[in-house]
């Protein structure tokens, strides 16, 4: 996909995030929107996956360590063809396979159940280790929140991954700067994030999380990096794409009401129209 196609897809993913969270009347739109471009690049460009065969043996793996942004993961999986886009409105509802946090037993394409922060990265490390032990060439990706870095287990896992030189592992930090109680820098600062991962023997790349050229270059660099895992610190905007959600901590874990939903969708429609103009 070229950048324009990626942008258009990411915009559709964002619309689905808003639609799903609005339907659920609960969920986490802010961190789903901030990571939408990363999700889109991973599932439409980077990863070797097969929606027809989600458990394909030597597929690349993705673990959503920041499991609360499941609406983002579900939306991209649906648009990639793992399950019907129409099912997204069942998010968080009784009987739906789209649980509030990802459940690997029920959602096609979900490689690991997650939601309790700090745990996903360890599972991703285990997957990467299995790949090394079996001399397979699949790659493992995990997405963390910046607030999540406050969990000690993240650093246990990073120490292990650096020590084991797991160059088939890419840790992506969605650095939108906000957590429930406020800015991460004020709550319990994880900064400097890049220096911390460097100290744990990672190759570290800082990028703009909404620039597909930068995203592409980072993942290409990660592939070429040998003997150490890569950490991509993706500097993002929480709520990206929806005017009143952008940069606002209030939209970490809240659903838009009907009126807000209309405004949000209008914002995204407008972005879509601009992308069409760009195409023409």
């Amino acid at each position: 996909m070229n950048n324009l196609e990626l942008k258009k897809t990411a915009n559709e993913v964002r619309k689905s995030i808003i639609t799903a969270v609005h339907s659920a009347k609960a969920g986490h739109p802010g961190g789903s929107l901030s990571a939408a471009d990363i999700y889109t690049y991973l599932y439409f460009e980077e990863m070797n996956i097969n929606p027809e065969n989600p458990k394909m043996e030597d597929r690349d793996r993705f673990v959503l360590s920041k499991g609360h942004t499941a609406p983002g993961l579900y939306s991209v999986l649906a648009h990639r063809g793992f399950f019907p886009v129409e099912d997204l409105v069942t998010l968080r509802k009784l009987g739906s396979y789209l649980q509030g946090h990802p459940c690997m037993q029920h959602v096609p394409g979900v490689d690991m159940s997650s939601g309790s922060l700090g745990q996903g990265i360890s599972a991703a490390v285990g997957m990467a280790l299995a790949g090394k032990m079996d001399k397979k060439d699949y790659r493992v990706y995990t997405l963390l929140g910046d607030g999540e870095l406050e969990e000690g287990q993240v650093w246990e896992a990073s120490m292990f991954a650096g020590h084991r030189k797991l160059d088939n592992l890419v840790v992506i930090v969605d650095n939108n700067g906000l957590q429930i109680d406020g800015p991460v820098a004020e709550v319990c600062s994880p900064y400097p994030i890049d220096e911390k991962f460097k100290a744990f023997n990672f190759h570290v790349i800082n990028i703009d999380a909404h620039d597909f050229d930068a995203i592409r270059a980072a993942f290409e660099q990660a592939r070429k990096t040998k003997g150490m895992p890569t950490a991509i610190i993706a500097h993002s905007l929480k709520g990206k794409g929806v005017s009143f959600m952008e940069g606002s901590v209030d939209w970490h874990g809240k659903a838009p009401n009907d009126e807000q939903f209309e405004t949000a969708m209008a914002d995204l429609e407008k972005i879509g129209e601009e992308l069409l103009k760009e195409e023409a």
Partner: protein
Amino acid sequence: MAENTVKKIATRESYGNALLELGAENPNVVVLDADLAAATKTGVFKKAYPDRHIDCGIAESNMVGVAAGLATAGKIPFVSSFAMFAAGRAFEQVRNSVGYPHLNVKIGATHAGITVGEDGASHQCNEDIALMRTIPGMVVMCPADDIEAKAAVKAAAAYEGPVYMRFGRAACPVINDRPDYQFEIGKGTIVKEGKDLTIAATGICVGSALEAAALLEEEGISAEVINICTIKPLDEQIIIASARKTGKVVTAEEHSVIGGLGSAVCDALCKSYPVPVMKIGMQDVFGESGSAAALVEKYKLDGKGIYEQIKDFLK
């Protein structure tokens, strides 16, 4: 039988030895440790299969998560640490990264209970059975001796799903050395038949219960002793059938009386055949430093201690 003629082996040794055999049988078996391979006795596996032994350092939470990831890729990970850290420190990782996705991870928890001895209360885990049995789908086993421990490890490897196995630090008598011995997950065994009361015991308390039963027998009291290795799923049938025969049940475990075997047995009895039950175990207290033998005597988990408590119960 004279004490000095009985063969004694710590079940943590059995764990290591069984892993060594499994290593040869199944290339997918991998063993994880958190800097305690010398103590968990997995060292023999590490020596034989260095490429399949993963030392995670002193980071049990990450170790459990790494095991979960390995299991998603078809490995059969045996996570090894002290019960305090495997079930205690890493409880939520076991619950969310292993139990909830029902991954094929085996937890080998050594140094359970007070027989840890001199290290004292900080390392004496009397809560692990309670913690682990609340996790849906988790198999919980506490073998009584070397033979049962090895059988339990083999059975865990053959079973698809999460399993928690509890082993001890101190050598304990071999009581299952007989040609017709068979092991099955979820099956209790009557190790001594009786008619006046039932003693359901697990782990090292099975040996103690047999000693207590012998003392009771001298006074004309016939105790039936049931070895419950699998606390979850519990063999409810064997307990209820015995309770119907004897009308009284005693449980014995090297674990808190809150949430362990005693609670599991009461759960089973209260729904179909309620009878008086006495729970022998750690009575809602922490342990302390001392030799394993001295602690077992002080907390009345040896044959004499169980005998005395049963005598009180029968008054």
